[in-house]
């Protein structure tokens, strides 16, 4: 079974600074997708960024970028120029044969 590990239960960043959230996963599949989702207190899971495993180029989406290391099975999220609205739970997710989520990282943004 695939497992997704987020080793940082909580992270904190100063507004306008950069923060990196870590994620590792375990799989024997060669084709899969990786995601970062944001979940504010409203509970809705919002897709932040998506990476296809067969693509070597790291995905970027405005202030959000990933560092995808397929051999190391690592998929970290970098948030640049952090904003107060970035505060939320962040979940790393893997989709191959099935969909698995990590336990989440709670991000606090300090003004």
């Amino acid at each position: 079974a695939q497992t997704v590990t987020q080793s940082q239960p909580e992270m904190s960043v100063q507004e306008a600074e950069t923060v990196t959230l870590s994620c590792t996963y375990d799989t024997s599949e060669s084709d899969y997708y990786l995601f970062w989702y944001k979940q504010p207190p409203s509970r809705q899971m919002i897709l932040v960024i998506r990476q296809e495993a067969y693509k070597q180029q790291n995905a970027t989406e405005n202030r959000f970028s990933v560092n995808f290391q397929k051999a190391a099975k690592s998929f970290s999220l970098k948030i640049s120029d952090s904003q107060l609205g970035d505060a939320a739970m962040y979940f790393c997710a893997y989709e191959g044969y099935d969909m698995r989520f990590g336990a989440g990282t709670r991000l606090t943004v300090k003004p």
Partner: protein
Amino acid sequence: GAGVSQSPRYKVAKRGQDVALRCDPISGHVSLFWYQQALGQGPEFLTYFQNEAQLDKSGLPSDRFFAERPEGSVSTLKIQRTQQEDSAVYLCASSSGTAGNQPQHFGDGTRLSIL
């Protein structure tokens, strides 16, 4: 509506009662997923539909859990003889593709509390 709609948003039931949770996916979305999210945890996969076919129900925790999508659009998750451990947020997601080739869009979830 434009997004995935779930109802009710909150549900309180007494232990032993049956509950039904509804999900209206985005119109035209082929895939529909149900997840269970316990407090402070990430979502756990329950079941997956492609149109009306339930292709994967490996995540359903017991035979008290039943899901259906009879016409390939609206889905209902039913929990029979509820137990306290069933208390969680139940998330529904839909996707225009299959097997991850399109992202999942999530609803706001139903928070189920079993007394």
